């Protein structure tokens, strides 16, 4: 664990220079949230409307932080030789990955808190309720989403193509997750919820249903199955992450 903390602090110090990560995980969601529902500034939303709306952005912040901050970063580390340096100095893969993951968990958490506070203020929401909701959901969905993004460094694409593909896919997946119809067909719901943004959004709605008897449109069993799929995939992939770059001898 000491080694993981060493990497956590190293990554946090590196993050100070990577302002784009903060822009992505905080300023873009704030900007988009004010842009898409300007009416909420005039007529505050109901609790259910606000929860659904904020859950969309909570899912965006969390998954976006992990996709770029952990998945893509690990792929970049491997290609540019950072992975080899770090693992061969520390004697193992786990401290490097855990340290990196914790640094992005910290960033996502801070972004989530600031976002929720700002939105609660402007939309006249119950701050304690929405903060609690956002934090509990964050704790529950972070492990499976972190596991899922471990697939990225083992995908058979070179780094520039990988980043392009992921960025191209990110926004349509976001739109699909937050605007799709709800169905009664389990298989269709399952396929929709394989989209990690859809999964995260429904995890928040399910949590609200459990804690505050809110409406939950999907089956909790689907959420459970997808959680297990993400975890198993991630634990399988972490063993397969190669230390050596595919394109550059280091």
């Amino acid at each position: 664990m000491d080694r993981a903390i060493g990497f956590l602090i190293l990554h946090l110090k590196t993050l100070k220079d990577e302002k784009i990560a903060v822009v992505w995980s905080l300023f873009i969601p704030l900007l988009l949230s004010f842009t898409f529902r300007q009416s909420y500034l005039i007529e505050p939303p109901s609790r259910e409307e606000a929860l659904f709306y904020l859950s969309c952005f909570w899912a965006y912040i969390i998954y976006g932080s992990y996709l770029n901050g952990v998945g893509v970063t690990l792929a970049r580390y491997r290609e540019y030789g950072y992975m080899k340096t770090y693992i061969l100095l520390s004697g193992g893969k786990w401290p490097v990955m855990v340290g990196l993951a914790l640094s992005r968990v910290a960033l996502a958490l801070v972004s989530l808190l600031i976002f929720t506070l700002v939105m609660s203020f402007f939309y006249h929401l119950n701050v304690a309720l929405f903060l609690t909701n956002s934090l509990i959901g964050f704790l529950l969905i972070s492990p499976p989403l972190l596991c899922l993004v471990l697939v990225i460094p083992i995908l058979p694409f070179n780094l520039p193509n990988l980043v392009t593909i992921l960025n191209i896919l990110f926004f349509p997946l976001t739109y699909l997750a937050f605007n799709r119809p709800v169905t009664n067909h389990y298989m269709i719901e399952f396929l929709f919820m394989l989209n990690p943004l859809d999964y995260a959004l429904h995890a928040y709605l399910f949590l609200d249903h459990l804690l505050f008897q809110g409406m939950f449109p999907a089956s909790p069993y689907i959420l459970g199955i997808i959680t297990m799929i993400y975890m198993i995939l991630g634990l399988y992939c972490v063993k397969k992450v190669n230390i050596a770059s595919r394109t550059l001898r280091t």
Partner: protein
Amino acid sequence: MRVVELSYGYPKSKQPVLHKVSFNIKQGKLNVLIGPNGAGKTTLFDLMARVIRPDEGLLDLPPLREILYQTQNPYFSHGLKGKDIAQFVARISGQRVVRDYTAYEDLLLERERAMLRRLWEMKLGLMSVGERKWLITLFSSIIPRKLYIFDEPTSGVDPVARLYILQRMKQLVADGNSVILSTHQLHELEGIDAHLIFLHQGMIIYEGDYHHWLKRTGIENPDQAFELMIEQ
């Protein structure tokens, strides 16, 4: 510690890079791996550090957590400062984290102390190649391990930093550690009790004392002796 009959070929390559390579890592001597560009030195180190798996052979070496392998170009974010590297190394090796460079002065020569003072608050990106390598090698060598592997620690480095790095290697050996490094700078082995391992075309063509090797070739200039060895 030894490597026994190690063989390896890259997946898409027709020829193996290494063919039944065997050598010993001597304690009390600086083990130096030499060979022409493309001979397989880095590949051999990657195999020893379990970055890649051999096709055949035995590695009678400590487990990965007891090996420190500094790659040819160690990568750290250029925004990090000298002290960040020091503190990072202290944390991953379970040592006390210090905020002040004076804690390291006992390990250093006078001129090295001045260098560390200067680099402590400097960003890695603003250091010269030699300063960066010296700093990273210094702190890597503080991490306690059974085997140290340094891949060309003095390449691209100015003469002063080169001297300090080699001094660090010699100190590690004197402290009872096993050290192997690769180099193209054969002249720097002059004053060193070096165990030479010469790799060429995937095979070990000489293993033994560096000075004995020079005597055997009958040439004083190590670069010329190297060339003769390859031609033979």
